[in-house]
């Protein structure tokens, strides 16, 4: 290790500390710190990652399964926000945020995969893991819309499916109720330490132990007044502000496309109804014309034609839906990418500064 004189050290430490101290000043007034300080032990922060689209890789299956990949991509960004709103309404949690990619250091990370979404049925596989690696939930939730549930134009993006989101929220509360306060407190500590380890592995590399099953336990804790930990918390506060800005973008997206999405879902629901009706009609109204006659042949051809025209109509309306919401999605993705890019750049800088600072602080010649 380089030998550092006390004078040089003081100068470098001061410079780095000033840089790190600047972080929260830039975001003065952010709610995040207040939430952190005031929340109850059970009110863990929840990060909901953008869902997996669940689109099969085999392109040839898309038509059979009636999966519209572009629409699934929109739903993958849109549906997590509906879950976020449901969790916020329970007032049982800390900050609930939609994040563009899974954050392993989140206190509670919710991941989801869209298994089915056809307007009539929404099926989601939801997996919830806390910072210690404990799996809270890993199951499929199914919501079905009936005529009495369907409320076109509500603009909520979830008419008829609210029950599904409520079930997820309820399952989360049940899972949390199984855990002791100490366990919840540990989750918060572990989340912070995992974050600290990511940012300053030299300083925080040995505070956690990882078991073979991937779960983390606290090996030892840093001192309460550890200045390095204080810096990590400040950085995390700054990151939260950016995450909140990204979350706000998902909120804007939801507000802008909720009504059109409701319309799309209602359309899809009706198509399914019509298809069932057509099948019944085809069964019950077989042509009475003599077999082989022009009327009988035309009837066979027209039945097929009707089915195909309905399918084509669906395809073209799926494209129309993508056309309509495309610019909104593109604008949001650009802004989120900018914010993420900023965080990535800052993260690299913070990482460098913290490692340097740790080296300086632990390498000072007394």
């Amino acid at each position, binding site marked *: 290790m380089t030998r550092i004189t006390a004078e040089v050290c003081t100068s470098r430490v001061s410079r780095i500390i000033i840089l790190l101290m600047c972080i929260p000043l830039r975001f003065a007034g952010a709610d995040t710190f207040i939430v952190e300080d005031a929340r109850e032990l059970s009110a863990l922060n929840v990060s909901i990652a953008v869902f997996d689209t669940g689109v099969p890789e085999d392109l040839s299956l898309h038509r059979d399964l009636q999966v519209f990949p572009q629409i699934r991509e929109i739903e993958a960004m849109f549906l997590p926000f509906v879950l976020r709103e449901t969790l916020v309404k329970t007032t049982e949690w800390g900050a609930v945020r939609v994040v563009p990619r899974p954050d392993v250091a989140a206190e509670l990370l919710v991941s989801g995969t869209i298994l089915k979404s056809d307007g009539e049925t929404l099926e989601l596989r939801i997996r919830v893991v806390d910072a210690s690696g404990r799996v809270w939930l890993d199951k499929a939730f199914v919501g079905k819309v009936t005529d009495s549930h369907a409320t076109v134009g509500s603009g909520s993006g979830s008419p008829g499916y609210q029950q599904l989101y409520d079930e997820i929220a309820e399952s989360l509360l049940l899972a949390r109720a199984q855990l002791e306060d100490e366990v919840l407190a540990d989750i918060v500590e572990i989340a912070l330490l995992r974050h600290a380890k990511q940012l300053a592995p030299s300083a925080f590399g040995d505070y956690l132990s990882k078991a073979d099953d991937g779960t983390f336990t606290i090996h030892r804790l840093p001192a309460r007044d550890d200045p390095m930990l204080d810096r990590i918390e400040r950085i995390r506060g700054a990151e939260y502000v950016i995450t909140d800005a990204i979350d706000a973008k998902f909120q804007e997206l939801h507000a802008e496309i909720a009504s059109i999405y409701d*319309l799309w879902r209602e359309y899809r629901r009706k198509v399914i109804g019509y298809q069932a009706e057509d099948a019944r009609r085809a069964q019950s109204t077989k042509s009475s014309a003599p077999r*082989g006659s022009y009327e009988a*042949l035309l009837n066979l051809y027209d*039945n097929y034609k009707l089915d195909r025209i309905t399918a084509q109509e669906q395809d073209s*309306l799926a494209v*129309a839906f993508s*056309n*309509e919401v495309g610019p909104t999605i593109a604008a949001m993705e650009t802004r989120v990418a900018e914010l993420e890019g900023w965080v990535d750049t800052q993260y690299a800088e913070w990482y460098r500064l913290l490692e340097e600072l740790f080296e300086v602080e632990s390498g000072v010649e007394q």
Partner: protein
Amino acid sequence: MLRISFTVVLLLLLAACSQQPVISDERIRFERRMPANFSGSWQRNYARDDEVNAVLRDAYNKLIRTLPDQRRPAGSGTDPSASKQMDSLLALARLAELITRPDVLTISQTKHEISIARKDDFAMLCAFYDGVAKAIENDNGTEICGWIGNQLISNLVLRGGLQVTHRFTMSTDGQQMRVVTTVSSTTSRIPFTLRRFYSKFERPTSDFNCIETFSMKRVCSTTEIVR
């Protein structure tokens, strides 16, 4: 793969019921790229088309040759089965004429699909994934395509023993196209075939850029539309 095999078996079974051979297994495959590109707008060249009545007359003559001897004792009337065959052939001819009526075909071809849009009818769809044809199925029938050299074949097998086959062949300069449509049924001894000819044309460009939207339907602008 299992699905494709199932589809092929299903088509063979359906074909067995409807007399006509379907596209064979080797014809639903191709290497790398599709053998021909039919993309574009095509308008009917009526001057070269088959004349329906003439084709029907030829088909009648052919049918008569396949029927048992029609010379029956005086007063016994026409053989009812022969009369039924005549009616069946006429029904096929009427259906073939109806199906081949559109005067413009708009063909879009991508890496995986060929869509042939027709006025007042569904767009025929040929889907190929990894060089293998994928059948389009619904409760009333199955549509599958294949290639014989540069010739595209679309085969529609309907419930009730009706089958419609289109063969698309393009001229070497890519400006002319021939579509041979064959309609067959288990109720008729012989199929009915009609040829239609098309010439490629360029659709006039519009001063407006338009897109379809879900809630506002067609939206047009004189400037470029952001998608």
